[in-house]
């Protein structure tokens, strides 16, 4: 395998790992705010790494540029979406879970 192929494999694997972290996080974390953390951060990085791997693998100029645009827009839109979710939750008056309420229902 060439170094480039190694790079692609590593990016894809790490991306998949963070995608997995996001999924586990959504299941394990206690409330809507903490879950949004998992969904906004790990998910962004996972997707970005995967797209980065794809961009390296495709290796034609045009498709790579498009993949880079995808990356940029993921970075712009994901936090915005997370903010929208969290803000909606706050507007609904949902109280954040704290370490105090261990038995807090999810």
């Amino acid at each position, binding site marked *: 395998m060439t170094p480039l192929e190694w790079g692609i494999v590593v990016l894809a694997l790490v991306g998949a790992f963070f995608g997995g972290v996001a999924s586990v996080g959504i299941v394990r974390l206690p409330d809507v705010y903490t879950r949004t953390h998992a969904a906004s*951060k790990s998910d962004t990085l996972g997707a970005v790494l995967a797209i980065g791997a794809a961009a390296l693998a495709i290796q034609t100029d045009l498709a790579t540029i498009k993949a880079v645009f995808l990356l940029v827009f993921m970075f712009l839109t994901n936090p915005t979406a997370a903010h929208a979710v969290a803000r909606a939750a706050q507007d609904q008056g949902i109280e954040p879970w704290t370490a105090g309420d261990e038995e807090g229902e999810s």
Partner: protein
Amino acid sequence: MPVADSVTVRNTVAYAIEQAESAASEGQQQVSLHLVAVASTRAVDPDAQTELGQAKDLLDRIEVWLDEDLGADPPSNLDVELGVIGADRYLFSPGDYADVILAYADEHSIERVVLDPEFNPGGTTPMLRPLEVELVRGDIDVETAPVERPARSTALARAATLPKYLTIFGASYLFYLLLSSYKPLDFLTGAITATIVTALLAPIAFSRQPSLTRVPGQFARMALYIPYLLKEIAVANLEIAYVVLHPSLPIDPEMVELEAAIWGDGPVTTLANSITLTPGTLTVSVSEQAFDIHSLTGSAREDLFDGGLERAVRFVFYGREAAAIPSPRERGQGDGDGTIESDIDDPEVADDD
């Protein structure tokens, strides 16, 4: 009646005066008409002087109109108040404006609010409908003044200027060509597409005039900011991964408030999104003076109040000098555990550009 400069503010003021006058001539009781300019920035922000100056100008003009409309002998039971409200906080959403207006109405027992149909203090985003909806919360009558107004298109077309057209045209043309296959036909279709995009978007795309001196600098500094942000994102993700995968789920979530020393739509959006992307923090709402931020762990809160991101965003939008400010913790925010860290010179961002 809240006033802001618009094409119909003159007629709306005339309408409000006429209504107040007829109310005063009908009954014996005292009628008072309050005309207030709503300030969106806080008095401490750098833009505030300009905004307050504009508000003063407008109120001066209104005073002249009052003399014109009320004539030589105004009804003795009518008094008129002029003033600026909301200068003590940063107003962001229509809800914020409604809060300020309702609080004022409450304080002066006002029963009726007259809105200018072109009332649009927030810049280019439409404000009136959401503001009306928010105002209905209060126990007062809300009405939009029935005044003539010019067609929407002319009002919008005025807002667009040559630099805006050129910027949008250039950006969309470049974007089109980047994704095209560089055949001669693409250059033609690209030009047509960019023209259409420009015509549609120029009136709404910028809240401020793009300037050749400011924008390239911001882009250059943005280019420095991105690697820093990527590093922060990577660290944030390792932390989240550790926390999420740790068997005992060691989280300590808490909602905190950060009063950020930045202003304007672009910087606030950038900082809010950056906060969401980095260590264990999530911007929940941006309201009035502060960001409400949900933080997942204690160390995430520490980082937040150390203010690295805030400083970086200030660096991007206002230049290098603006980056050297006290961190939020040094400004007396945060959990106040007394551990003041002095890492003012963040090497990632404070270096050369």
